């Protein structure tokens, strides 16, 4: 296990494109950190810098109190699991898992014990004599993880390890990774663009956009108190609905609806009286109410079993609501609703108003 500190990390490529801006993060011993963000936001670059596969342009990387910024990848004692598994096709599962230890010239008996122990953890004991091509995608990814486990590294890095798997397998492998973390208790950094993976796996999430860290916090913090409009729109499925409007006499007034504010909200927004702000409402926070102030003109009704997603518009502005009931609205139906949890954002800075 190891703690990890990234201080003012910047990455500028040779073509002067800056991929990461002033990245700061303290990772505690045994913590599971997920870096999440859209493609091109710099999350994989950050992970590769930690692994030593990319040079750090400026800033410092400290593992267990030791500055490893300039240290070669092989000496960092970090294991990385890639999206494409990176297994040797001509080797068996056993040989793939044992390979790194064989290169280190470890005792073959110790290698054997480590490989069997890792295979036991990952449920691969019966597959040890098979070649990667004989395995399913999930099993191959487990082999890749096994190869990392046998090294007993200080830090595990996962670069979108589930992206090549189908939805069902992704869910199962995700749970396996979570169990693996609980079992090993090793520090793990995991990169994904899938917010479900981020929310289910992470102790803390680092949400990134355009090379900048947008917010660092627990999954609940990011979901419940997003720092800005980007985080609010990125975390949560379906994404949050946004409405531009003004605060006027205790109401949020927009051209779509007027919503009364609670005393607490009035106090919070007292400085914004008469100013333009943005109201955010998660689909699950929009509830049906016969006396509601929102009138949704339904365009599509999606039944998900437990919930119903109702897509519609309010005066031409698109809105998605997630009702807990089984609904059977038809296109053109009107639904009266209200928002039971509102998020407010400064229109100029896009930051959350707190």
């Amino acid at each position, binding site marked *: 296990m190891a703690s990890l500190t990234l201080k003012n990390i910047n990455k500028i490529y040779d073509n002067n494109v800056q991929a990461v801006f002033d990245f700061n993060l303290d990772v505690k011993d045994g913590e599971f950190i997920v870096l999440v963000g859209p493609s091109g936001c710099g999350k994989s670059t950050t992970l590769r810098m930690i692994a030593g596969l990319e040079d750090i342009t400026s800033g410092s990387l400290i593992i267990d109190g030791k500055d490893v910024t300039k240290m070669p990848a092989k000496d960092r004692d970090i294991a990385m699991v890639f999206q494409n598994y990176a297994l040797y096709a001509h080797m*068996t599962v*056993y*040989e793939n898992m044992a390979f790194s230890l064989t290169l280190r010239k470890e005792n*073959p*008996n110790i290698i*054997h*014990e480590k*490989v*069997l122990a890792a295979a036991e953890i990952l449920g691969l004991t019966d597959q*040890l*004599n098979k070649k990667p091509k004989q395995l399913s995608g999930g099993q191959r990814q487990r082999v890749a993880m096994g190869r990392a486990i046998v090294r007993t590294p200080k830090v595990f890095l996962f670069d979108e390890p589930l992206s090549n798997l189908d939805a069902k397998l992704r869910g199962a492998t995700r749970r396996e990774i979570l169990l693996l973390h609980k079992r090993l208790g090793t520090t793990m950094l995991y990169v994904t663009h899938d917010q479900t993976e981020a929310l289910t796996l992470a102790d803390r999430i680092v949400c990134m956009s355009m090379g900048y860290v947008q917010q660092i916090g627990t999954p609940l913090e990011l979901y419940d108190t997003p720092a800005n409009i980007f985080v609010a729109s990125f975390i949560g499925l379906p994404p949050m609905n946004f409405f531009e409007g003004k605060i006027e006499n205790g109401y949020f007034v927009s051209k779509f609806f007027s919503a009364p504010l609670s005393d607490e909200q009035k106090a919070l927004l007292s400085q914004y009286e008469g100013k333009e702000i943005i109201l955010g409402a998660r689909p699950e926070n929009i509830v049906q109410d016969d006396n509601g102030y929102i009138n949704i003109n339904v365009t599509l009704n999606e039944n998900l079993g437990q919930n119903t997603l109702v897509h519609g518009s309010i005066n031409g502005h698109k809105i998605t609501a997630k009702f807990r009931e089984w609904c059977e609205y038809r296109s053109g139906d009107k639904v009266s609703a209200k928002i039971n949890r509102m998020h407010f954002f400064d229109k100029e800075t896009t930051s959350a108003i707190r």
Partner: protein
Amino acid sequence: MNGNIDIKKDRLRYTKNSTSATFAYVAILFNVFYFVSIYNTDVGNYYYTIDIGISVICNLLFLLFTFLCSEGVKGYKMSYSVAFIPLGIFQLVRIFGIPMDAYNTILHLEGKDVPVMLKDQFIWLIVCLIASAIACFIAAAIGINKTKTLRNYEKQIGA
């Protein structure tokens, strides 16, 4: 100590018998040396008989079968391990074929006695064939031993 022995045996279940295979490659290597060295001298028409064709075929067959056995023995197959024994014997028997005959043959060419094969070449060919044979026997011994060990261990653990 017992634990170590069991781990060693258990390892056989997941690792290839690369030692036997390596010795098979050594046997092949020495046979190649033999193959490229035997026709170095071309005295008169000594080599222009059916024997040369048989000799070339023997060399190719040896290379083919030894390579096949090297692959088979990796997977602890007893038959492939045992097959190295006749291959080794075959290499020893070949000493008494062309090399011995060529070494003992003296041709009368243009009024002179010309030996077909000089002593240095003969010794080198003998060394190649014996080394190849020894490598085959070692590959066989290791293969048989490891295969037996693995089979017994598998019986013991009920695998």
